[in-house]
């Protein structure tokens, strides 16, 4: 064994030894829990799913048509609350002293720039900065190195604050002063955060199972108002609709359907009127929840849809097959589903696609995959989606910074 192999072996064993696997739950729940029984391995469905791929596509189309006309049955109200005592106190950390906050306020050249803000490419692999590299102005906010990269910081609608998660707490950074306020606890590995259009409320997925509302100016011990407790423990991206009346989220294995299904759904803030927007076959059209954004202007939802090509799966049977990506949009009720752009093939290694609406909802930005590690960044207007503008290349999460009135 070479030195490298020995070092590799030692590293893997030491890291594995450090892992806190947690308690082994009783297997007695296996036969009795209906939810658990539904969680069969996708692997056992693989061949059946491949054999019925054509049927799945037809079913998807029928499902979408059905969703358009479906009655919206009221779901039972859920007005529970998140008990902070259920979360481990050990995840709390004191407010860090901001290491660096600079107000640049440099006005960029007019060419190639969105009309109402700057686009930030938050490079998750090298920094935790809100860094308007090459695209704009305003502040560079240095966030703690432990900031969760996905989902990354979310800038408030007025552009003055950024909400992010680090060391088990959700924090709101005042971008002008650099002061953090801890507003909620987060026990999930990646807490999804969304600002309400008014900028007063945060919708957070704090524990991989619930979606709850928190006061953006509250303290870390505040009790959130649970909107929904989901069927499966997974990260669930959340976003507000433009009117602030509903939450949009991604769920797996919804409503007792097959676990290989992912769904985009919405629900009122009081936990009623849960409706599906679309369902996809996870094996062939994986729905990555981090690539979904709801327009702040109207009822349009945009997302990046992966499409696993059966031929590619055979060609790359011994490697990671690439995904064909499409930018798709629909209305909040699932109507007007359309393919807005083909984004190329993505091996999704060092580069991750992303899609974001501008703060005014009149434009949107997305990557087209042009290499395994870089994407070409495009901005298009809703008025002329057929003529996107290329404004550079990069990787990492896209964040629009609204133009401040300074």
């Amino acid at each position, binding site marked *: 064994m070479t030195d*490298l192999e020995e070092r590799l072996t030692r590293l893997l064993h030491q890291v*594995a030894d450090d*892992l806190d696997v947690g308690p*082994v739950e009783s*297997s007695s729940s296996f036969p009795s829990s209906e939810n658990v029984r539904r969680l069969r391995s996708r692997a056992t469905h693989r061949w059946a799913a491949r054999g019925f791929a054509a049927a799945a596509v037809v079913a998807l189309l029928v499902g979408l048509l059905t969703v358009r006309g479906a009655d919206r049955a009221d779901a039972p109200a859920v007005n529970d609350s998140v008990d902070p005592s259920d979360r481990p106190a050990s995840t709390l950390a004191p407010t860090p002293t901001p290491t660096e906050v600079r107000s640049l306020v440099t006005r960029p050249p007019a060419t190639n720039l969105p009309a109402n803000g700057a686009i930030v490419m938050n490079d*998750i692999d090298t920094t935790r900065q809100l860094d308007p590299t090459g695209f704009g102005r305003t502040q560079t906010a240095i966030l703690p190195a432990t900031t969760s990269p996905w989902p990354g910081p979310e800038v408030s609608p007025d552009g003055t604050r950024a909400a992010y998660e680090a060391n088990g707490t959700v924090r709101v950074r005042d971008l002008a002063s650099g002061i953090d306020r801890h507003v909620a606890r987060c026990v999930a590995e990646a807490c999804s955060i969304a600002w309400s259009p008014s900028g007063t409320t945060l919708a957070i997925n704090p524990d991989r199972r619930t979606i709850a509302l928190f006061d953006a100016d509250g303290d870390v011990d505040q009790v959130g108002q649970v909107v929904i407790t989901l069927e499966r423990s997974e990260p669930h991206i959340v976003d507000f609709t433009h009117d602030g009346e509903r939450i949009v989220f991604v769920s797996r294995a919804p409503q007792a359907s097959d676990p290989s299904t992912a769904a985009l759904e919405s629900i009122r803030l009081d936990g009623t009127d849960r409706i599906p927007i679309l369902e996809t076959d996870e094996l062939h059209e994986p729905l990555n929840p981090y690539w979904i954004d709801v327009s702040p202007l109207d009822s349009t939802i945009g997302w990046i849809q992966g499409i696993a090509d059966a031929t590619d799966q055979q060609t790359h049977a011994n490697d990671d097959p690439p995904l064909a990506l499409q930018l798709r949009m629909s209305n909040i009720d699932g109507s007007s589903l359309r393919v807005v752009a083909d984004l190329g093939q993505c091996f*999704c*290694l060092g580069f991750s696609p992303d899609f974001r609406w501008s703060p005014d909802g009149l434009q949107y930005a997305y990557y087209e995959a042009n290499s395994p590690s870089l994407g070409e960044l495009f901005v298009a207007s809703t008025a002329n989606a057929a003529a996107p503008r290329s404004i550079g290349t990069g990787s990492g999460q896209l964040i629009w910074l609204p133009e401040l009135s300074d």
Partner: protein
Amino acid sequence: MIVGDDPVSAVPTANFDSFYRHEFDQQVRRAALILGSIELARDVVHDAFVGVYQRWTTLDDAGPYLNRSVLNGCRDAHRRNFSRDRLLVRLANQRPANEGFDADDGVLADVISTLPFNQRAAVVLRYYGGLSIAEIATRLDCPTGSVGPWIDRALQSMRKALS
């Protein structure tokens, strides 16, 4: 340092609960190294055990079925979660320097987290699980001749990064 035995092969399979308790911890650790997420690994392993439970009375040997289910689950989870797998890097970087970790370990962890799924899985099964090339090929359901090049390419990436 490599542990040459395949832990599942020695498991008492007469009782599902003992099988479950014997296997859970190690399966989660292995899946976490592949996926880069301990929570995702728990979900994947739990799903695989549910599948085993449902077939418990019909499976001659639950071990291989479990191994294959966990790896397939990892593959699906990897595709759904894409770039979130930074656990290895985080854990390596959290290690104090006086505990034997140095900058090269951080580089290695970084390279591992960016490897394609099959390369990463092969590296974990080889250098953490201690499996032979043939055993890895069986687990990953691929030709034996594919595994060696995957590991070689992974090691080349690491050497290049270290140099």
